[in-house]
């Protein structure tokens, strides 16, 4: 299944990235190369292999329900490009989820 220019535009939109036409063409080619490489896996017979969701054979790692200190608000907001005293600040967005 080849990646089309349209797929690239769709994925770019989902990732909130904007590209020039040249970049889109280059990315389409690169993504196809990656997928072709991955195609090699299809030569393996996986009929008797269980689908895998995790590579580490661990399960049931839990923490008990106790509180630990949070970071000071100043530390939390330090990386924000725009902020108020207590909030992160972003361009107006309503409902566009």
């Amino acid at each position, binding site marked *: 299944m080849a990646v089309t220019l349209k797929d690239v535009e*769709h994925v770019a*939109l*989902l*990732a*909130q990235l904007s590209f020039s036409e040249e970049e889109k063409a280059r990315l389409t080619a690169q993504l196809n190369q990656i997928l072709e490489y991955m195609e090699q896996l299809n030569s393996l017979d996986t009929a008797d292999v269980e689908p895998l*969701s*995790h*590579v*580490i054979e*661990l*399960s*049931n*790692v*839990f*923490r*008990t*329900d*106790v*509180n*630990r*200190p*949070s*970071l000071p*608000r100043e530390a*939390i*907001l330090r990386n924000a490009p*725009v902020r*108020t005293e*207590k*909030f*992160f*600040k*972003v*361009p*107006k*967005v*309503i*409902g*566009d*989820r």
Partner: protein
Amino acid sequence: MKFNERYEPVIGLEVHAQLLTRSKAFCGCSTEFGIDPNENVCPVCLGMPGTLPVLNLQVVEFVIRMGLAVNCRIAPKSVFARKNYFYPDLPKGYQISQYEEPICSGGEIEIDLDDGTRTTVGIIRIHMEEDAGKSIHDLDVDTLVDVNRCGVPLIEIVSAPDLRSPREAYLYLSKIRQLVTYLGICDGNMEEGSLRCDANVSVRLTGADRMGTKTEVKNMNSFRNVERALEFEINRQIRLIEDGGKVVQETLLWDANQNVAVPMRSKEEAHDYRYFPDPDLVPVLVDEDWINRVKKTLPELPTAKRDRFVTVLGLPRYDADVLTADRAVAGYFETTLEMVTVRGGSDARESAKQVSNWVMTEVLRVVSERKISIAEFPVSPGRLSELLLLLRGGTISGKIAKEVFEEMCSTGDSPESIVRSKGLTQVSDAGEIEEVIARVLADNEAQVKKYLGGNVKVFGFFVGEAMKLTGGRANPKVVNDVLRKKLEALKG
């Protein structure tokens, strides 16, 4: 609300319940509500590079409780998935949720309809996930973001499209709230957002097999809003189809001020969540032992309790409904009843109706007048049972008991001390009452003549006068007996 009868609404609900844990789902930050913005945040809930989420065990315990309460299958293995989307209140860029392998699936909830019948609503799945932060649009020209809620544990309960009216949706949601509060896993407060509800709505010609195109209605943040929003959307769809139009699959936001559901401005791409298993979180394995352990901690569920109140205690269905609506009220009633029966040496079935009357008409009245919860009510079950025993033993009359109750509500004093200090003990001594009645009859000769002339209605007047003279303390039964005897004697 009546709809065009040619059409049948088909509704399914997705309910989010915030779990009553101390810490978040994947880190130790507090889940406390109403904290200053961005105070309960750490690198894990912000999704900083290099951090690893670790699942809160209590979250799993709570979701298993819910699953068992609605007869779900508990998956031996379930995994977490990332639901990817960009929104400012989701700093990680994805929400940790469950997708292909949720922890609970295939259950059902019974709801009692207004006509007294019961119907079953299928539960497709219940899964664990984390909450997102909060965007505030009206404090600034820009949007302000508070990420305190990021990572707060939720369960999402997805019903089958089995609901056939806004009223049924309302009853279903009430049942969910009752269940989660009984189970002690969520406080059930819709206004504060601890319980949230989205609806999938479609209409079809009554009797048709195929479902119509559905829309999703969001932002219904109260029980009343759910009913209203569904009524609005069902009517909108019916009118649209009647006018030859077609329902478009879209998401609508309920606007409670305007009473309308408005389409969300969203691009089709936004629904491409690209779920994949979260590599940071390992699978959750639940064996039979674990399930049985949780089963043992389940309290008696509301429907079972309600049925027991009717069959074992002999209460009317109405009383049982009122008393079991809230687990704390049911607990108050049961503790009071137990103390009355143990201390009074009586049978539970014999005392149940009296205790029920007092809890429903007196306790719940004061609770609602003062807008408090039953936990904050100043009269404990122990004190109420003392009062009821004074009443049953004849120490005070019913009328005085209500006065003493009011006094207990305002001072918190014990009924004995109120009765003693105010001299409210009931007068049952026939000799004392005879004197009172002799005075009543002597003071009201005209009325006595009327009575002797055949106007028996005056009898009530004499009783009233006798009660007045004793400040309401006379035992009404003794007053009646003595009065009847005296009047008979006068006739003779």
